[in-house]
């Protein structure tokens, strides 16, 4: 297992290299550059040239790329052009809202999805099952930003129950922080809970059909024991899969939800960086997000190993 771990960890490096290169090239393909956005439309060519030299952008691209690799090797993600601080600091400042949003979204999707999936599997093919699955399908079909907009309209403006704008940081009160995250987290989590419910249900159904479950029933164990003790334990594994996928999808979803609800998180940071051509931020944040994804996947795979010794990995 140790060699497996080592191999997987090492495999991250070439993947990150690809990500770093692609993000470098991609953002520079976009027309315009940070110098012209900074200086404004009325700047002269000399002003722009001066600015570009100051930003280190006057050197040929391959040279800049190599410098980027070199800095990366030292863990230096560079300096944001517009925020005038290290990229890492810019990310850390915006981490709290995004992390909390993703966390609550995940928690919500699991809290709603897993029980729904289990109940559906337990009462397989009854009205309960069908209505849950119908709801799940509906949930999968609504874009999360549309749900967000509708919630703003109903709960924020018409009813006035929840704050419509932005984000209240944790240090200004846990309750107020939660209130400001309620609608965004629901928009994210509700839609994802549909996916979770479906997957949980399917896995439970598969497991419930296994021979040893049938024999447990034959032995006379109560239905409850069968479901909750044996089947659930085995259904944890696909649920872990789901968590891994869900977190990944939620990071992507956070980008839109932060825009809709005006939350100053990493999602909004990267969108504004792409639109302003803040090269270091785009490159740095993309790399960090990619790293997070990959690490989470690695952790989920490790969790399998721990939970189910039946699973062996080849090579």
């Amino acid at each position: 297992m140790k060699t497996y771990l080592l191999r997987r960890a090492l495999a991250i490096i070439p993947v990150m290299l690809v990500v770093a290169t692609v993000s470098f090239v991609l953002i520079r393909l976009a027309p315009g550059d940070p110098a012209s956005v900074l200086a404004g439309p009325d700047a002269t060519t000399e002003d722009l040239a001066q600015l570009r030299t100051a930003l280190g952008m006057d050197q040929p691209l391959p040279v800049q790329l190599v410098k980027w690799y070199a800095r990366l090797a030292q863990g230096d993600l560079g300096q944001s052009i517009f925020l005038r601080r290290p990229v890492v600091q810019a990310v850390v400042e915006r981490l709290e809202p995004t992390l909390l949003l993703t966390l609550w979204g995940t928690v919500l999707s699991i809290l709603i999805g897993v029980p729904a999936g289990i109940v559906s599997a337990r009462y397989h093919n009854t009205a309960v099952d069908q209505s849950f699955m119908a709801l799940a399908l509906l949930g999968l079909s609504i874009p999360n930003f549309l749900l967000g907009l509708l919630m703003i309209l109903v709960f924020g403006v018409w009813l006035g129950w929840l704050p419509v704008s932005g984000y209240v940081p944790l240090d200004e009160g846990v309750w107020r922080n939660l209130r400001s995250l309620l609608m965004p987290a629901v928009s994210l989590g509700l839609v994802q809970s549909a996916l979770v419910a479906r997957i949980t249900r399917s896995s439970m159904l598969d497991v419930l059909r296994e021979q040893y479950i049938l024999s447990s029933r034959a032995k006379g164990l109560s239905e409850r024991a069968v479901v909750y003790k044996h089947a659930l334990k085995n259904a944890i594994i696909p649920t872990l899969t789901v968590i891994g996928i869900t977190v990944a999808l939620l990071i992507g979803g956070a980008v839109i939800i932060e825009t809709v609800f005006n939350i100053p998180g990493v999602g909004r940071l990267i969108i504004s960086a792409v639109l302003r051509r803040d090269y270091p931020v785009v490159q740095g944040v993309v790399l960090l997000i990619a790293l997070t994804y990959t690490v989470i996947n690695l952790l989920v795979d490790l969790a399998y190993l721990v939970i189910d010794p039946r699973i062996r990995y080849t090579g």
Partner: protein
Amino acid sequence: MAVGALRPAATVGSAATASAGGGTALRALLRRRTAVLGALIVAVNLAVAVGAPALARQDPQHLDVRVRLAAPTATHWMGTDHFGRDVWSRVVYGARLSMIVGASVVGLSFTGGLLFGLIAGYYRRLDNPLMRIMDGLMAFPGIILAIALMASLGPSVLNVILALGIVYVPRVARIVRGSVLVVRETPYVEAARALGGLDLRILGRHVLPNCLSPVIVQGTFIFAAAVLGEAALSFLGVGVPPQIPSWGNVLAEGRLYLQQAPWLTLFPGAAIMAGILGLNLFGDGLRDLLDPKLRGVHGASREA
């Protein structure tokens, strides 16, 4: 998805016995019904898309500022937007655009995915580098990759298709490669190679048909994801040019007038929900038909 490891869920699933008597049959029947419903909705969408010029009551880009932000009436079934354009016509043409984008993205991702997947699975030496690149692309959150691509390429329908296609190529490639790896080892293919058969022919006759069914299933979900993806990109302002009617554009513009003209959000919202719902239902049914083993595990892998 994960880099490298087998998904244990698949192992568990395939270990399950295929039949448990009457229960499965009943379930299959129900599935068929929802699949039929799904197919119907998809058909309606397609019909609307194809028949858009006839169904729309006006040129979706025709402005008439004097009647801007009008509530639904007999002439304007879904009201007008802030330029006085007919919302119904824009939703109808938006359906057309969504179908085009969805189908094209599926086509592009299939082409790219099949190509890379086949090559990676068949030629051992190319497997590692190709898959590393695929992993690299998949490590990007889909939407961020799409936003960056759109910023570079510029707003146009073609570029949206290109961007979303690129996002989904690695996913298709993975599935294809997985299938190829399995098929490759079968005696049939080994014999064909030993006999000196052309690689291409082997790929075409033996390998390809075997990877098709998981790919096709994935296809319905990519279609749905592409429709949602276009909507998200256009909503953020980096998708299709704003004057072109698309569901995302209509929602984006409706959002600015959420309080005064909620119909600008509600109607296109309902349309897009119906469209995606149909695709998901259809995809579920298709999956049941083609590959019961994969039932429920992969789900609708939407990237928001």
